């Protein structure tokens, strides 16, 4: 294992930002981190990048517990690098920015130049070397920041929402360049992103962080309150399009429900159960192949609320599902988890 985390917590004042009992990352794999804003993704990446100290718990890197003293951390930071969500470049040229990390690693001048040119080529910015960094757009800054990390050939590359603030073309280049690092140097990638499709497409494992806790493999349907008590010990939540979802055993009106995507079944021919309390109508908006399971992840829009359903290709064919198709979703009450 490259990283091993046990009993990790991070608190700011009285607020717990992270609470992870156990988590491991294998060398050379690609990991995805999903979760809403404020879930703790950035804090986890900062801890993995050895830029933040956990409040408690043990972080082991290459089987050695990390010692939080500057002399111990600095050599490790040369192997684990982070690209921030909104990266900054130093107020100098693009070339000098890219040279910084290489100089610190005492790479020879000729090799530095060669790597910088290759890095810029990887992100499609060959002609930008001598440009002052402040003249770059947001997307270009993000690409240079990524390239300046890639040319360091890191063991671990942590990407914090790398495509959140860039246009489609920049996003494509960022995605391709990140994967190239894994392909060429066996770099372990840990990517925090809201781009579900990308994560399912490239990641060996996707994790879902919610309020600082790992709640599953990233595909769970998260349904926020308010919940209202309904008959037969069911709780009701009105969805944006007026439909109602009924779930059993909510701990309170503001609870958050998690429904496993495998427990939702699309039925093209409506088959309501006796109570009619576990049926929703929606439209298929996207079908994505999940790399790790070879299953299809279908996104069904109910109003504007996306529901994720995981199905076999055979089931997709059988139900004749395609984007735009209206479906009825049947969900099992037994698979609901509450937070």
């Amino acid at each position, binding site marked *: 294992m490259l990283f091993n985390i046990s009993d990790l917590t991070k608190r700011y004042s009285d607020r717990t930002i992270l609470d992870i009992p156990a988590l491991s990352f294998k060398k050379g794999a690609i990991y995805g981190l999903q979760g809403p804003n404020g879930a703790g993704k950035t804090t986890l990446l900062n801890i993995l990048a050895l830029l933040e100290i956990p409040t408690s718990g043990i972080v082991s890197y290459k089987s050695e517990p990390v010692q939080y003293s*500057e002399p111990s951390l600095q050599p490790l930071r040369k192997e684990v690098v982070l690209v921030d969500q909104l990266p*900054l470049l*130093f107020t100098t040229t693009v070339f000098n920015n890219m040279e910084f990390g290489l100089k610190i690693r005492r790479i020879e001048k000729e090799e530095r130049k060669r790597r910088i040119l290759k890095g810029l080529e990887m992100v499609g910015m060959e002609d930008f070397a001598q440009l002052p960094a402040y003249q770059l757009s947001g997307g270009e800054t993000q690409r240079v920041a990524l390239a300046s990390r890639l040319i360091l050939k890191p063991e671990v590359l942590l990407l914090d929402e790398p495509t959140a603030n860039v246009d489609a073309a920049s996003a494509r280049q960022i995605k391709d360049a990140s994967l190239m690092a894994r392909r060429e140097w066996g770099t372990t990638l840990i990517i925090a992103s809201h781009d579900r499709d990308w994560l399912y497409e490239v990641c060996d494992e996707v994790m879902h962080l919610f309020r600082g806790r790992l709640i599953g493999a990233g595909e769970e349907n998260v349904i926020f309150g308010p919940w209202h008590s309904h008959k037969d010990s069911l709780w009701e939540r009105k969805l944006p399009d007026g439909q109602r979802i009924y779930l059993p055993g909510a701990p309170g009106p503001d609870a958050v429900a998690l429904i496993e995507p495998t427990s939702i079944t699309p039925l093209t021919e409506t088959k309501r159960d006796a109570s009619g309390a576990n049926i929703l109508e929606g439209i298929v908006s996207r079908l994505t192949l999940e790399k790790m399971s070879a299953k299809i992840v279908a996104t069904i829009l109910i109003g504007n609320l996306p529901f994720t359903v995981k199905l076999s290709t055979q089931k997709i064919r059988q139900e004749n599902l395609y984007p735009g198709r209206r479906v009825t979703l049947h969900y099992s009450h037994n698979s609901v988890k509450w937070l």
Partner: protein
Amino acid sequence: MNLLIDSFISAISLVISMDKEMINIVTVSLKVSGYSTLFASLLGIPIGFLVAFESFPGKRFMITCLNTLLAVPTVVIGLFVYAFISRRGVLGFFDLLYTQKAIVIGQTLLILPVVAAFTIAAISRIDQRYRKTAMTLGANRLQTAFVIFREARYGVVAAVIAAYGRVISEVGISMMLGGNIRSFTRTMTTAMALEYDKGTFTLAVALGMVLLGLSFGMNLLFHLFQGRVRS
């Protein structure tokens, strides 16, 4: 009005003719101000940088003290240093009173808080992500500090310029510790005060013009530096 115009015309001729006494006064002024700015910068920039960069107990209190010292009148510094370097003072045996060194000591103490406080402000304004970026690229503490300093360089130069502006134009310390001795400790400001007392304005106006010219020159250098940074 005639007095002012006459003084102004005479002053121009004094400047053009490079009057020997005027040149001597300007030289003394530049020398003491230059040394005091140099020493205050050598001490104040590292102090300011460390205060801004490091976290330690009493940091806020220290910043408050430095900010308070910005407003200390020159005569207070003059009195304070006088108490130390006069014959009866603990440093009296150095025989520093009424020397250029005494002025340099006083002026250095005057602008040390200026350099330190403005450096703190310049460093504190730097986005924390620069530190994070340097660290994630593998920089050690010294290299990270260098990055932060480099990003704050414009603000730090502004601190030095502001400090220089304060000493070149001060009169209290130069008068109290230098004694306004002709050809030795007479600076532009003390000479102007003396000429005013004597009721002869020509040299005072000429020195005022030189002072303004120097101030303009410093600002010009500052803007050139700013332009270079921007480009």
